[in-house]
């Protein structure tokens, strides 16, 4: 089969690989029809995630057709079209049995602090991902769901991570009616967090980024006020000024490890790998939220230490909430929001890239060329 393969920082190519085999009775093998590149894939691509091995195939957002199932699989059969959450979950451990499907204890021998994720380094279990023609899907009775007939494929693939994570980020903010919500980052996750913050009763939603084309999307897709921090001396002061000096009630970090806005923070993390991510957006969230407010973190960070302004968080009495999104828990309600016309995830898609051209796709997404917001990967396309 053809598969994207990591060759080292900033370098990937498409190679022939063996079609994955059933390795556990509850495995399925899925033929990928559509995949996506996630902003967090860029952390791998840039060499920031520890134990990212040459030869690994990335990709934790994908849908496809069941090709083969293991002997204990009960809920799926070959030919079923499925959407697969980015979390690999056993469904029965201490954490899964309490709904913490992103924190499974039975799928990642490499770390206890992280669950299992497709194509996301050995730090998340050493699984190949879905930017390929086929992928191994462990615990086929727990993760995948048959795609409803009414759902668009592009909506389905975005539900496997970006939309679920953005919606989860808004929920972590514990938004109450009348709240002002500041969302740092106008990528797909930030845009969905901003859009769904309204569902929870936000009275103002302010999206902060430095890419004007993404801020335009925040205005049109998420109906948000926008702030271009590149045009400001100090974005925290700006937030205070628009909230009577108090700060936002809720701040959401939808940026994570490669945040811009501080040259020193960015270079020491994204370039020199001296910290587990550039916490610029997180620090702005801590400083830009009001005292007693809530900071939600869904931006991805590596496991190494970060220069986070924790003293401000303490002194302001903040609530910090964070996790990788337990994707499958989000789906029933998100399906309703899509069917009711409140949300159309595919509006975020800007690029559809054949698998054979995926190296260009990563560069376009990484360098933010050509108005790129969400690139999809299409196996078998020319």
């Amino acid at each position, binding site marked *: 089969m053809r598969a994207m393969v990591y*060759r*080292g*920082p*900033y*370098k990937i*190519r498409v190679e022939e690989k063996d079609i994955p085999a059933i390795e*556990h009775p509850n495995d399925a093998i899925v033929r990928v029809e559509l995949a996506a590149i996630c902003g967090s894939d860029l952390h791998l691509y840039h*060499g920031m995630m*520890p*134990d990212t*091995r*040459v*030869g690994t195939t990335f990709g934790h957002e994908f849908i496809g057709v069941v090709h083969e199932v293991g002997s*204990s699989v*009960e809920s799926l059969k070959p030919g079923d079209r499925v959407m697969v959450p980015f979390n*690999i*979950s*056993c469904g*029965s451990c201490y954490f899964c*049995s*309490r709904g*913490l499907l992103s924190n499974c*204890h*039975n799928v*990642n021998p*490499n770390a*206890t602090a992280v669950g299992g994720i497709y194509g996301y380094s*050995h730090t998340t279990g*050493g699984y*190949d991902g879905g930017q390929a023609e086929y992928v191994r899907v462990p*615990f086929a009775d*727990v993760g995948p769901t048959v795609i409803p007939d009414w759902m668009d494929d592009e909506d389905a693939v975005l539900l496997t991570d970006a939309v679920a994570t953005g919606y*989860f980020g808004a929920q972590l903010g514990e938004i109450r*009616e009348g709240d002002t919500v500041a969302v740092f980052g106008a990528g797909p996750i930030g845009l969905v967090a901003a859009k769904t913050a309204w569902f929870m*009763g936000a009275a103002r939603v302010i999206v902060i980024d*430095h890419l004007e084309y993404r801020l335009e999307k925040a205005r049109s897709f998420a109906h948000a*006020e926008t702030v271009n921090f*590149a045009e400001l001396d100090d974005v925290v002061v700006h937030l205070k*000024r628009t*909230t*009577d000096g108090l700060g936002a009630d809720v701040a959401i970090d939808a940026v994570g490890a490669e945040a*811009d806005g501080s*040259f020193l923070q960015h*270079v020491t993390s994204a*370039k020199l*790998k001296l910290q587990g991510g550039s916490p610029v957006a997180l620090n702005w969230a801590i400083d830009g939220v009001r005292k007693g407010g809530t900071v939600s973190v869904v931006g991805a960070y590596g496991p*190494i230490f970060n220069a986070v302004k924790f003293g401000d968080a303490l002194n302001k009495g903040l609530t910090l909430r964070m996790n990788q999104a*337990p994707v499958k*828990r989000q*789906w029933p309600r998100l399906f309703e*929001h899509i069917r009711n016309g*409140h*949300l159309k995830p595919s509006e975020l898609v800007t690029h559809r890239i054949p698998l054979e051209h995926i190296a260009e796709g*990563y*560069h*376009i997404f990484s*360098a*933010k*060329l*050509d108005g790129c917001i969400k690139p999809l990967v299409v196996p078998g396309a020319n």
Partner: protein
Amino acid sequence: MSERIPVYTSAAPPVPSAEELRARIPGWGVDLDPADRPSYPKERAEPTGAHWDLPEQQEETFPRERSVEHMRLTPVFGTVAPLHGLSGAIRRLAYERYSEARAAHWLLLIAGDRVDAAESHLRSLASGRPDNPVTETGVRAELSHDGVGSRRGSRVDVNHQWMDPVLVAGPWVLAGAAAVAGVRALLRRGR
């Protein structure tokens, strides 16, 4: 929203009314009740599809490294890219010696990644398909997808993007220079 003089009283800043928002924003308020939010409460037991108490153990076909914080090999694990070579030895040390709580664990893994990339690049030179920095970096998209025009405006990442080619090509330039210096030193010694 226009700037106001902060009042510093108990009053909250003014915001639009619910009626106004409901009329303007599609779906405003549909998840007002926290009980309608899928992640509320944080811990909640629901059917997961699991029909086992403990999953069957996946066969360990090669010695699988694991965190010392795990009490056993997990029932299921990935089998991509088993440890090998010098990078494998570095990574094995990180897993066997240091817990996830220790900086040495992660810094050794990062070091292993760099060694892995160098080993793989060198191996590729002896293979039928050496690494190609032009095709593998996707840099040709600069020409096909408006590299210059995309960087116009106020975006701040252009202040560090110039480092990327240095990070990609730098180790190769240094390795090449070291190889040339080594060969010259050998030649001088041979005279």
